[in-house]
């Protein structure tokens, strides 16, 4: 990249920071101007992200672009590191940001102060975390995105939000302290915080220093697992996400992926293949924790009775699947997992938005009542024969129902949508580690565990989603048709259409994911690109 285009790499951080800062200065009365600014900023971010991804994918070489802030050479100065994974996640973040922004326009932006500015800062933190090539900067961007998320989680206020927010903030502050301990231990042992420089130094590290390095990496990993909501560190997630306002929850579905991103990035870069004595460090733990998280998520989806908590429980399953897939440490599995990441993040985001539309015009406690009726039988079932035929479904409910069906298919991983393709890619790679048709290979226990967990969690999700769908869309109880505006359905349709697009164009998208996975599994390319020298 040359000329002005090379500076585009810093735009995903600088643009939302600038726009957010302008918004803070604007009066709260000028909501229309703020909304227009926010929308323009997010659309621009989406354009830049797509441009970066396409450019990076079409270019030759390993597909790693480096942007030195202030033109200081890497390992002294701070660098932004743009590879296919970062570019992909920038696109997904911008998509979810756009959906949240659009959805908030009619109602939610007026429910509290500074929604637009907080959303911009949230996007800045997310983009920065995906782009940075420096461990301490990762911490700073984590804090930026968390600070914005504290505001967004409390957006709209109310007892439930404040109670959940209190726990959420306390846990994240404690996790941030762990993050700092891990980062400083790694610095103390290796003398650098640049990720690529670390990848170059770790293979040569003397054996006496390795226990300290691994302890630091493990503490760092625990901090990330808290943010990724892995079992048993993620009990904060469901109350917070279920209480948060829907646009905030939609963007949070990307936030829980940041912890996973950090784990994937560092595990593959620092402890990937060919990194000396520490290669594969923590992989077994990741698989074990991931499978436990999937199991916990599967039980949670079956046990939950209301829709927001069901969506939160789906985040557990998604996190667990990704953790275990990263831990498996195979190129093919990682490629499938990346496909799954995009598909599940978009689907969960759409689901969080959809839930609020479904919940409108519904009495509080109706869910509990419905379950009770299911369990103990309903005495009124006999006298419903008279009007069983010819009750029309209102158009709004039909659209909402179609969206719900799409979300269910995507989350459960059923054909024909992209969730199935992602799961199929992961299963295929697990069953044929050497490639399809290359003869039988020994599948490790971790592969079998992940395989079974994937099947069972898909099954649990179908059951839970079907139950929720029947209860909410086909319920016989008298209920008002929710009043829904087109601009509120539009972001849900947009997210689902992207998933449909990923299904139709599965070939090129999967090639991109596999190229991303191949880059991630070749950590020796990073020092060469970032530091300009071989390890």
């Amino acid at each position, binding site marked *: 990249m040359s000329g002005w285009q090379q500076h585009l790499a810093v735009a995903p951080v600088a643009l939302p920071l600038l726009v957010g800062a302008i918004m803070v200065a604007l009066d709260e009365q000028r909501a229309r101007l703020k909304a227009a600014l926010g929308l323009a900023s997010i659309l621009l971010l989406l354009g830049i992200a797509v441009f970066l991804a396409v450019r990076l994918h079409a270019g030759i070489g390993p597909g790693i672009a480096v942007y030195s802030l202030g033109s200081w050479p890497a390992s002294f100065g701070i660098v932004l590191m743009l590879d296919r994974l970062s570019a992909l996640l920038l696109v997904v973040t911008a998509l979810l940001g756009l959906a949240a922004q659009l959805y908030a326009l009619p109602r939610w932006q007026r429910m509290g102060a500074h929604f637009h500015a907080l959303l911009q800062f949230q996007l800045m933190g997310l983009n920065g975390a995906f782009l940075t090539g420096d461990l*301490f900067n990762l911490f700073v961007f984590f804090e930026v995105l968390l600070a914005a998320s504290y505001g967004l989680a*409390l957006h709209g206020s109310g007892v439930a939000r404040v109670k959940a927010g*209190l726990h959420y903030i*306390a846990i994240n502050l404690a996790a*941030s302290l762990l993050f*700092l*301990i891990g*980062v400083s231990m790694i610095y103390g042992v290796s003398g650098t915080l640049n990720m690529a420089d670390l990848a170059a130094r770790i293979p040569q590290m003397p054996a006496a220093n390795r226990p300290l390095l691994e302890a630091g990496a493990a503490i760092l990993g625990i901090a990330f697992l808290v943010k990724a909501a892995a079992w048993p560190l993620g009990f904060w997630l469901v109350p917070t996400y279920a209480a948060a306002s829907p646009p905030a929850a939609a963007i949070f579905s990307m936030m829980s992926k940041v912890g996973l991103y950090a784990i994937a990035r560092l595990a593959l870069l620092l402890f990937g293949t060919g990194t000396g004595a520490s290669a594969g460090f923590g992989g077994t733990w990741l698989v074990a924790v991931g499978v436990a998280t999937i199991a916990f998520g599967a039980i949670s989806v079956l046990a939950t009775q209301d829709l927001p908590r069901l969506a939160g429980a789906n985040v557990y399953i998604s996190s667990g699947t990704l953790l275990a897939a990263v831990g498996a440490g195979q190129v093919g599995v990682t490629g499938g997992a990346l496909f799954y990441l995009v598909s599940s993040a978009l689907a969960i985001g759409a689901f969080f938005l959809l839930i609020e539309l479904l919940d409108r015009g519904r009495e509080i406690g109706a869910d509990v009542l419905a379950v009770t009726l299911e369990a103990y039988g309903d005495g009124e079932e006999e006298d419903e024969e008279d009007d069983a035929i010819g009750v029309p479904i209102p158009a709004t409910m039909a659209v909402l129902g179609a969206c719900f069906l799409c979300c269910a298919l995507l989350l459960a991983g059923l054909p024909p949508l992209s969730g199935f393709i992602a799961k199929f890619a992961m299963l295929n790679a697990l069953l044929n580690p050497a490639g399809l048709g290359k003869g039988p290979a020994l599948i490790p226990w971790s592969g079998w565990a992940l395989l079974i967990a994937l099947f069972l969690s898909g099954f649990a999700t179908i059951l839970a989603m079907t139950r929720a769908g029947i209860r909410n869309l086909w319920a016989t109880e008298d209920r008002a048709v929710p009043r829904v505006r087109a601009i509120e359905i539009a972001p849900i349709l947009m997210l689902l259409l992207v998933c449909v697009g990923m299904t139709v164009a599965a070939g090129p998208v999967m090639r991109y994911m596999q190229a991303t996975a191949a880059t991630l599994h070749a950590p020796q390319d990073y020092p060469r690109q970032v530091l300009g020298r071989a390890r």
Partner: protein
Amino acid sequence: MELILAIAIGLLASSGVWLLMRPRTFQLIIGLSLLSYAVNLFIFSMGRFPIGAPPILGPGGQGDPASFADPLPQSLVLTAIVISFATTALFLVVMLAARGLTGGDHVDGRPRR
């Protein structure tokens, strides 16, 4: 020096963790503050303790590359202090909101009995 610092970090961290487990929001925030002090000292200690060493270069531009006070952990501590200060202030606001909404200072929002 090492021993004194290690004991100080240990004391701060253990008191912080103890307070973190307590049920009142005030104890929680003091616990988090103590923990962040411990972490800041810990980060500082990761730069080793070269006593009387210059920051990279001494007066007149001479310096010994084998012995200088590492400036990086100090700047990390500075950043960490600023961030933890800001997030603690933010947390305080949420606590006041919780106090106002629930009428108690229990972390689970139970009213005072």
